[in-house]
């Protein structure tokens, strides 16, 4: 039973990958501009992220170590310093977009400006992290996250044409405005393959005290958890394709997305969208803030653990508190969360190869993992991710500026 409940870790992690500000925005944008044509990018990202999450969980279960910990230990401080610095910057920007997402959801409901909510949301997040254990966070956010299934219900109720929908899983190589098309494709994969997912998931597995008996369960958790997020993201794409595309709304502004659910749920649609977005961004904020604290504490060897009293790991608590304060500040000064998303995704893409390469090497270390080291299938996927990460790094910034994002 304890092992079945471990699924909550998968769902929480998945929310950070698929249902955060960046991934929801890009999925909706994809549907609004290209109908079902970009469904394959969510499919591809899902497949890759399942494998990577499975690997990071397997690593934690077999070695009882989380990834940042192992990277510092095996590659040394001088290797890790620059990626760690860029990663922290990226964490702060992503956290800013998620906090911005919560504030935007509150703005939709209340009518008060987005920046007004920055401080209350920051205080709420810090209080929640201080007071709760890791288990409370897992259980509450994965339960609340179920509300995002409204996107899937809405997608089904629109009766999307099955033939077009299935055709969307085959990559289209000739699309209108190819620059924009590939810009969105890159953004979707980049938004899902976030380094913090793997840090959070592996640290979470250590917090939940996984040992090697969890390696089998871990596979199912990775597939089901990531599958959950993926289905919701696809739901958002389909709804955008059915509702926004025919009206020629291209989603330049998040306000336009807010009306996505009103066709399926005339009365509740607007509120459902706001609550769904707010909950998804709330879970993602907690995940990113914790991931930053995990990475920092493990890099320097401090005591860490969300289930410890803040008195026992004051520095760990100080990291997430400081991160939330800084990121709330970005929203407080009035930066548009959607614009921030693009910048955040570009920094994530930039740091991905530095995370993926040591990961691949560690997963093949038989002295460390023994019989749980990577087989050829996992290695093939990891190499694909590494190559893709290099491409993303090179193209994400210009494409984000020229195409999809702009």
């Amino acid at each position, binding site marked *: 039973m304890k092992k079945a409940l471990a699924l909550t870790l998968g769902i929480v992690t998945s929310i950070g990958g698929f249902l955060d500000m960046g991934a929801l925005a890009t999925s909706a944008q994809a549907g609004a501009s290209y109908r079902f044509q970009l469904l394959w990018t969510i499919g591809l990202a899902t497949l890759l992220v399942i494998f990577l999450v499975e690997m990071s969980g397997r690593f934690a279960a077999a070695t009882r170590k989380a990834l940042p910990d192992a990277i510092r230990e095996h590659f040394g401080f001088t290797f890790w310093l620059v990626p760690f610095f860029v990663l922290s910057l990226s964490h702060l920007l992503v956290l800013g977009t998620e906090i911005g997402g919560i504030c935007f959801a509150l703005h939709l409901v209340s009518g008060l400006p987005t920046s007004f909510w920055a401080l209350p949301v920051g205080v709420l997040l810090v209080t929640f992290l201080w007071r709760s254990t890791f288990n409370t966070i897992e259980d509450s956010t994965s339960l609340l996250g179920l509300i995002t299934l409204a996107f899937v219900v809405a997608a089904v109720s629109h009766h999307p044409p099955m033939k077009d929908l299935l055709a969307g899983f085959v990559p289209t190589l000739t699309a209108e405005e190819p620059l924009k098309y590939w810009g969105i494709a890159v953004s979707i994969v980049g938004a899902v393959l976030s380094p913090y997912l793997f840090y959070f998931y592996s640290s979470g597995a250590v917090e939940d005290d996984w040992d090697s008996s969890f390696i089998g369960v871990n596979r199912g958790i990775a597939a089901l958890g990531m599958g959950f997020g993926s289905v919701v993201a696809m739901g958002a794409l389909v709804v955008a394709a059915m509702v926004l595309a025919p009206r020629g709304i291209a989603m330049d502004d998040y306000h336009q997305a807010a009306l996505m659910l009103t066709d399926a749920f005339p009365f509740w649609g607007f509120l459902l969208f706001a609550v769904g977005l707010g909950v998804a961004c709330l879970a993602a904020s907690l995940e990113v803030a914790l991931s930053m604290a995990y990475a920092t504490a493990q890099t320097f060897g401090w005591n860490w653990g969300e289930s410890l009293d803040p008195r026992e790991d004051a*520095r760990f608590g*100080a990291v997430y508190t400081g991160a939330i304060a800084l990121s709330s500040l970005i929203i407080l000064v009035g930066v548009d969360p959607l614009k921030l998303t693009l910048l955040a995704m570009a920094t994530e893409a930039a740091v991905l190869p530095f995370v993926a390469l040591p990961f691949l090497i560690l997963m093949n270390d038989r002295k460390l993992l023994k019989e749980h080291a990577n087989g050829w299938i996992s290695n093939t996927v990891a190499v694909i991710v590494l190559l893709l990460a290099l491409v993303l790094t090179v193209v994400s910034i210009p494409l984000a500026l020229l195409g999809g994002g702009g």
Partner: protein
Amino acid sequence: MKKLDLTRDLLDMQVVGRDGTKMGRVDGLILELRGDLPPRVDAIEMGFAVLARRMGPRAERWLAKLRRWSVRRTASQRVPWSKVKAIEPHHIQIDLDALETPAFAWEIWLRDHFVAPIEGKREKSG
């Protein structure tokens, strides 16, 4: 005789104190040169000053400037090899109480100035 690879098995490893508290990492190693005899590990070093030195002389100077505002008495700490109790696959066990070492100066400062004032109330009510 068991062999130890200094950079692989010792440098950057997690250091764990007497009561299991994680107290830092092996940021540096001090070797003692003993004339004609092979050098011997004298102590392990921990702390930001040690890390800054690994990054280069410029980083070390910057840190020295920053340290004027630091609450810590020292930015580095040497643990004599005699205090190293065991070298485990994933951590190094040392025979010191984490809380009494300079490694915890920041932790204690944060706890006293930052956590305690906010958390104090809860302790009384709960």
